[in-house]
């Protein structure tokens, strides 16, 4: 039983509050939460006799307070689902969206939680009871990297950030579209000799459908994919998707690698998987770091070479290389080989951040730096590194998975829907040891 729920921003301003207790709440509820949160670093803590749990998404905290004895998994999954519902109804989840859509969110939460008891959280079950109209918050285009759709048609990334529940005005103007995102996150660690020590790729296929009626969607994956368990053997050129978990509404059809989906409303996860097999060694980026310290001069030289091994159609935006530096470093001088790059020495964190604006597949970049240290005696070679790489690479997947066909069957309506497919590879923790 939830005692109370609230949403606050990172500064501690209370945006939304739902109290399920009999007595009114103290007015400083947000401040006491922030105070207690800063004392401990974990997402659950107890004060005022109640257990408080929170999740942090973007710059918002979703907080629930419960009596002791309630499963902490229940609350954290519920908060995650609540956040997802806000996204379905408002398009995005940030402070402005919450403030503009307060009444809508009150209605949604009232449908979902009654007197602290969780009722229903499926978007299509709740939708008939919601009468407020969403106010769509404009999303800054700068934050959204440009993305490529199928073939030559392009929409910006924010196109998928519309609320699934549209206001009456938008209903007539609605286009029938379905968005499919295949997102893979890579965790990799390379040794100081440049060899891959270990890697792990986790993929997700997400779907967001703005289609009228109740369509049935058939999706066919490319033939180089094998879905199964560890014991199955893979041939050359095939990728094994392990630990596949499908959503309840997905059924496998008799044809190979084809799925039949009856999508629920809102955004949902079609499938999540892990990769294994030979593709693990074909990772998109390689970095070489050379650290030289000559005894004659006082400066230490650092050379970074970054190669992108993806095919030319792939494009990475905002590639960032972060190098921790020794504590005695006072500054850097830099030499970069082309424009569109930037390097910065962050004094407090004692790290070097090299940013490349845009990087196409098959390209490489070189940068040279000299580290100025205050005292040579205190310099330790092992304080340089490990180097972290972060990127968002579109049009490339380590698994070489492709969605070959997306067919929409809808009995009562006749329309040709727009089908947008996006392939993105993200870095989860891409480390090079020095």
């Amino acid at each position, binding site marked *: 039983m939830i005692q109370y729920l609230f949403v606050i921003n990172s500064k501690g301003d209370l945006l939304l509050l739902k109290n399920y207790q009999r007595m009114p709440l103290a007015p400083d509820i947000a401040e006491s939460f922030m105070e207690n949160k800063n004392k401990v670093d*974990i997402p659950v803590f107890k004060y005022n006799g109640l257990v408080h749990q929170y999740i*942090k998404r973007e710059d918002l905290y979703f907080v629930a307070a419960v009596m002791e004895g309630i499963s902490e998994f229940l609350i954290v999954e519920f908060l995650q689902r609540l956040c997802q519902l806000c996204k379905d109804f408002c398009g995005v989840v940030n402070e402005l969206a919450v403030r503009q859509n307060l009444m809508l969110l009150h209605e949604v939460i009232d449908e979902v939680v009654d*007197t602290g008891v969780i*009722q229903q959280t499926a978007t299509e079950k709740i939708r008939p009871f919601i009468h407020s109209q969403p106010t769509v918050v404009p999303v800054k285009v700068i934050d959204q990297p440009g993305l490529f759709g199928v073939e030559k048609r392009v929409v910006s990334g924010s196109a998928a950030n519309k609320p699934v529940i549209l206001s009456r005005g938008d209903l007539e103007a609605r286009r029938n579209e379905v968005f499919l995102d295949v997102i893979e996150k890579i965790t990799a660690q390379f040794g100081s000799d440049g060899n891959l020590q270990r890697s792990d790729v986790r993929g997700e296929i997400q779907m967001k459908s703005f289609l009228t009626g109740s369509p049935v969607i058939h999706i066919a994956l490319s033939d180089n994919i094998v879905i199964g368990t560890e014991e199955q053997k893979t041939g050359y050129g095939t990728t094994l998707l392990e630990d596949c978990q499908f*959503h309840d509404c997905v059924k496998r059809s008799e044809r190979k690698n084809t799925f039949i989906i009856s999508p629920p409303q809102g955004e949902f996860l079609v499938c999540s998987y892990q990769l294994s097999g030979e593709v693990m060694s074909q990772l998109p980026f390689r970095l070489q770091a050379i650290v030289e310290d000559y005894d004659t001069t006082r400066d230490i030289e650092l050379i970074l070479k970054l190669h992108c091994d993806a095919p030319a159609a792939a494009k990475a935006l905002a590639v960032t290389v972060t190098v921790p530096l020794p504590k005695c470093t006072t500054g850097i001088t830099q030499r970069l080989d082309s424009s569109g790059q930037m390097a910065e020495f962050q004094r407090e964190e004692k790290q070097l951040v090299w940013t490349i604006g845009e990087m196409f597949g098959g390209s490489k970049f070189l940068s040279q730096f000299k580290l100025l240290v205050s005292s040579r005696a205190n310099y330790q070679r092992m304080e340089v590194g490990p180097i972290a790489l972060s990127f968002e690479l579109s049009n490339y997947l380590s698994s070489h998975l492709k969605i070959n066909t997306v067919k929409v069957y809808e009995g009562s309506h006749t329309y040709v829907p727009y089908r947008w497919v996006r392939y993105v590879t993200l870095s989860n923790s*891409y480390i090079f040891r020095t």
Partner: protein
Amino acid sequence: MSAYGSFNDISELKAILSKEELKGDIGQQRFLLGTLLELHVQGVSIDEALAEVAKLLPSYDIIVKKLACLIIQQNVASAPDLALLVVNTLQRDCRDPNPAVRALAVRTLCSLPNAPDVAQTTVLAALKDGSSYVRRAAVVACIRLHRSCPEMVDNAQLVDRVYDLLRDNDAVVVANAVDALDNILREEGGIVINRSIAHHLLSKIQTFTEWGTVRVLDVLKKYVPKTDEEAIEIMNMCDFLLHHSNMSVVIAAIKFFQHITKNMPQLQKCILERAKRPFMLILSSTNYELLYFVLCYIFQTIDQCSSIFSTKHTKFYCRYNEPAFIKIKKLQLLPYLVVEEDGCELIEELSLICMDVNNDVSSAAIIALSKVHERFPTFHQEILQKFTQLLDLKNDNVICTILTCVEKFGGRSEDDLDQMKKLIEKALLCVDLISNDESRCALLTLLASHGKDIANVPYILEEIFNTHRDNDSFVFNMGLLLAATKLFLWRPAECQDILGNVMERCTNSSHCEVRCKTIFLYNLLQVDPYVAKAIFFNSSEKIVGSQCLDTNDASQNEVSYPEGTQPREGDHLTHS
């Protein structure tokens, strides 16, 4: 920033609300009610405007109704007369053709504090309503009613009716009924689960929502199956729950299965193995809060989990961009998940994390390395080597943590002693950087245990003594005393001076135990130094936090003094 402009004066709002023109303007009504709600959230008292809100309740617009009901529910505690204004409207709404309006009215009626009879009759009627949406609200309203007037609900009629609803067609009604009964009957131990109810709930287990399933499984733990076959049949029926995409369902299912297989311990581990897949998926997700709880769960059940996850221990390695609380939890867990063959790999990985910028994370990594040492003593050399390298970082937090950990390592072979010597020598080079007393005490203990091989130890001890003349902490002085005594027994000629200085300092300490110990040791050495040597070097001596434990033999000679009668400097004790 807000959508509702800035009204700060409630009377202003009240004036607008009471205007005639407002009657037809739904948009304006919604706007004003929304403003009131927001002000209430910010802590402004809106009691003045409540009468006007009550007047808006009979509106035809459902949003206005919802907002009005919400405001009433939140404020009825501070304005009891409000209830009288709205009871009639709400009773009429309970017969409205729209089920959403009926449900809303039932909810609101049951939160009014001074209309219990009305509320009771309303709820009884609503429990039989044709629409499942209304029945759901009615069941939950029983909880509200119970909170405000328990006598009304203890009236057996209501409880029986809710028990009947366990057989309802709608899964959410059933789940709500389970929750309501558990709450209302909490004093009597919650809902009663007999065999027929248990089997009924289990047969419907596929129809519940994820939240309902968790609640039902929780409550089903009260049921004990009569035979092992029944337990296995139940598990087969609910097996699909172990692969659910919602982690709370998986965990609830695991706990339930483990409860019903209490008599069959060999199955307990099988259950966890079957649930392995959802765990593995969470390990590579970025939902850090959920991951934290999963890691805590694995830590709690480490005895069963360690063999299941040991082949996949690399999935538990820390990732660069994870928040500190995740890294620390993983570091707590890792030493228990690996088998000996993977020890080297783990040590390499952990030594990398020891250099992390965050102090808590690097301390956790060092402690993890010492736990690896505890489990697999064969890695003694490697770990000591890693620690020695880390001392080069000249980071005070790292040095302190390493010293407190290494103190607990025992001495082994010649090679091991050699490595330990190197570590101590390195530590002595950065002795100024040590910032807390526990670590200084740890260093002193190490010096004492290995002091006979290290040159210059007496002079080092003297230096430490001189630098910290004014340090009166218990831990430090005890450590200094015992170290000086031990070193004196090894190298009497060199350490006689320093022992004298230390003892003189300690007899003036503000801690009575330090003084007692000093006098005792002084007498012991006076009486028979060879006995002292036998005591100190025959069994290991530990300094644990703020307590000093000597060997068993020495404790026989301990004399404890009641408060106020401590001997002063120069006193002599006689042993009996």
